[in-house]
């Protein structure tokens, strides 16, 4: 059983380690390291998104194979720090309420730009799945006429994103940009990623697939939006930032948030929705970075982020290392065997995710692993799934050790506690 901080004062069992007599590592110090890692991670994500924006500007100003490739390289680099911040979801409300804008997937890419004829069609009942905003300066949405003559960040975030309440109408974030840089991956389970020609951004007669200027506008608007969203999030982790303050205001809930994020990302999100579902459906579209075939890296750096917050260390993009007192330090004082077990499990996960990455970089991309009957591919993916599940078992034991040491069962009838539940 895990706990989350939202009702931490009310739920039956609260991870309430605090300052036990013999522990030398203070909750506050652990939380400071954790917040420092978050701040550095979002700052690195911001810096790399700014580089991506600059590369996009170059592509639009001077379209060529070279500038397109440079933008793709910048996008891949931007994923490295960002994926390591995903462990701050599932426990930090500020991150949870914001995340859908930057990393939503899967998406109906036909909303944004042209798609292959085999993809849906105009009779598809999600009409806006084939809307193609790039080619359509004016259209009707939920009965209202939308003027998209100018493609602005506000148009993407306020009008198009999740249009009509359909979650697949993803108009913003990393994956929208990914689609605009790579195009659809039409190779199914075979080798190869999306192969958008640079001429999709060319001017004049060189322009392929039409509306190159509007395509460039969309790409630029989405990149600008990513920068502004990351600017906001990085600021939440400043010394006075709301996310950092929320953690420090209630250190018990803060420690709980670390463990909840580790467990929820490992188990439900990564092992479940992002890995096992793809195997269940054998669907090449069920991969996280499906246009660029970068999924192996997304999974790898998600896993690394989990390890980071337990060990209290994060490798920054500029070479500096952010480190400090960690959850591992605390657990090694309380139960050294359990700490060793957690470290081993996290290493195992990184080994298994590393194997997926190794195979993918050597040519067996993640969508190929998902093919029905590809036993080796399935074994690779399941290796990651099982390691992630296995490490969550140890996270649960840590939750119970911390709970058992300083457990607080809240009086459920407490009148000064509006969040109490009957039990």
């Amino acid at each position, binding site marked *: *059983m*895990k706990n*989350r901080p*939202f*009702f931490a004062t*009310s*739920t*039956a069992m609260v991870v309430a380690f605090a300052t036990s007599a013999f522990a030398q590592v203070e909750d506050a110090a652990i939380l400071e390291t954790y917040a420092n890692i978050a701040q550095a991670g979002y700052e690195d994500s911001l810096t790399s998104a700014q580089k991506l924006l600059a590369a996009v500007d170059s592509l639009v100003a001077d379209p060529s194979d070279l500038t397109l490739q440079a933008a793709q390289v910048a996008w891949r680099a931007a994923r490295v720090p960002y994926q390591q911040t995903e462990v701050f979801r599932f426990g930090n*409300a500020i991150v*949870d*309420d914001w995340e*859908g804008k930057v990393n939503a997937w899967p998406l109906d890419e036909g909303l944004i730009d042209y798609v292959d004829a085999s993809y849906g069609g105009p*009779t*598809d*009942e*999600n*009409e806006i799945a084939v809307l193609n905003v790039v080619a359509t300066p004016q259209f*009707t949405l*939920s*009965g*209202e006429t939308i003027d998209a003559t100018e493609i602005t960040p506000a148009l993407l975030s306020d009008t198009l994103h*999740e249009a*009509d*309440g*359909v*979650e*697949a109408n993803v108009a913003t974030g990393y994956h929208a940009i990914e689609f605009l840089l790579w195009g659809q991956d039409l190779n*199914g389970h075979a080798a190869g990623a999306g192969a958008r020609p640079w001429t999709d951004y060319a001017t004049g007669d060189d322009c392929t697939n039409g509306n190159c200027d509007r395509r460039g506008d969309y790409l630029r608007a989405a990149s600008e939006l990513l920068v502004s969203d990351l600017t906001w999030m990085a600021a939440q982790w400043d010394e006075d930032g709301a996310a950092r303050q929320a953690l420090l205001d209630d250190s018990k809930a803060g420690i709980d948030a670390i463990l909840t994020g580790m*467990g*929820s990302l*490992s*188990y*439900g*999100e990564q*092992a*479940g*929705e992002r890995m*096992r*579902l793809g195997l*269940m*459906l*054998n*669907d090449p579209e*069920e991969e996280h970075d499906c246009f660029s075939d970068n999924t192996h890296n997304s999974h790898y750096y998600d896993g690394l982020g989990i390890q980071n917050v337990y060990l209290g260390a994060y490798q920054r993009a500029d070479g500096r290392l952010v480190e400090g007192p960690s959850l591992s330090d605390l657990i090694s004082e309380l139960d050294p065997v359990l700490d060793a077990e957690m470290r081993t499990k996290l290493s195992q996960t990184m080994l298994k995710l590393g194997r997926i990455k190794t195979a993918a970089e050597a040519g067996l991309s993640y969508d190929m692993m998902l093919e*029905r009957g590809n036993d080796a591919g399935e074994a690779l993916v399941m290796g990651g799934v099982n390691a992630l*599940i296995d490490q*969550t078992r140890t*996270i*649960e034991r840590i939750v119970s050790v911390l709970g058992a040491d300083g457990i607080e069962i809240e009086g*459920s*009838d407490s*009148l000064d506690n*509006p*969040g*109490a*539940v*009957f*039990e």
Partner: protein
Amino acid sequence: MFKPALFPMSSIFAAAMMASSALAGVLDEPHLDIVPRTPEEAARIAAVTAMPVDFTAPAAFEEMSAGAATVRATDVRDVFSHASENLGFDEELTFKLGNGLFKKVWVSSPSSTLASDGLGPIYNARSCQRCHLKDGRGHPPSGPDDSATSIFLRVSIPGKPEDGIAEIEDYIATLPDPVYGSQLQDESVAGVPAEYRFEVAYQEVQVALSGGEVAQLRVPSYRAANLGYGPLHAEAMLSPRVAPQMIGLGLVEAIPAADIIANADPDDVNGDGISGRANVVWSTEFDQPMLGRFGHKAGQPTITEQSAAAFSGDIGISSSLFPAGAGECTVMQTACQSATHGDGDVREFEIDDEGLDLVTFYSRNLGVPARRDVGDPQVLRGKEVFYDTGCAACHQPKFVTNRLADGGAQSFQLIWPYSDFLLHDMGEGLADHRPEARATGREWRTAPLWGIGLTEQVSGHTFFLHDGRARSLLEAVLWHGGEAEVARDAVVDMLPEDRDALIRFLESL
């Protein structure tokens, strides 16, 4: 105005009457593995579910609408999409896999993605999420240019006595339309005609309220246009249905049937003008009569069965419970019958039991957000008005769920759904004149009110009732007729500030 129907004496009397004779199976809960309540628990439950006497402060536990399963009330659009707060990490995985299938867009057969094909051949939507937008309510089309995906028409014709179900007393025999089946689908795969186009027209009427205020209601009229398979049966009965919100369903499923029946008063023995009848339906899953809990007329007994029926009727996806590959097509619809279906591969059905279980688990665990502003003076005043006006007679505030042997998120929670899950005559204005099991053409299941104040945040609209005709909470109240007419008239006549407070209370749910 307070309703004696809520008092234990009459409730026990009613329950005893029903259980002993006609309603075989209604108290059976084969879908749950129940730990019987101890006398001590029963006493605690009676105390905690008693009607409030103090409206100056929130009641204990009132903020937590779904007990320990309650989720944080965020201010973003996906506030209905979170898993029960008290799930473990492993259950969260099951929830996420279910979410993947809930969002999944099904494709027509044959397709290279075997696990995703089987759509239709006729259908209303290609994914669950497409109607249950953001896990919230659907809506009628905003105009001729808007899609009607999250609303459709049910259809049936009167049956003969032998078409009824002998085991269920007062079962109203109906049959599907011989050509169109029991639901009209407005989409179809290539080569198969769609059944119709959904059309609605509204006529505005004014309702004078106290204090010189005036409300507008829109009276809908429905038409099944562009019928693809010839005319409907001469006696066809149509009923519009908008997709309901998805939150809290697992908790509804875990309410003791006896506690629901305890509020029934089918013959209005206590003379308060409010009956409350249980719907009893034939469970395909358990092959027996069961209490109907889900749907606008309480026509489905369990979440599994509701989900499987929706897969079949709405998307055309077969399952072990509803195995027809052609979905809801009748034998008269030959192109549909002879089209390629997605079953018969390694999964056998278009969605296998594993997939159906995942979607069921997901549906069972969409969390109910916490109340907001429970201590606000206007909210508290509105709460008092809600009780004084008699709303709580049907919109039963509280239940305690069964204690379940395998524990789980739904076990033994004090919940605040604001529904008795019974059928009530809602008057001519809302009547669809289309019976469903024991529900007459004037009866509807009391709609749960939890989460109702977040509708605009989640869905971007405030369309309520079974067909979304009400454009605000006040309009929804004003549509109440039949058994609720007295309460509705009280709202019309009350001081405007009390009416505002009542709405403010509803918005805090």
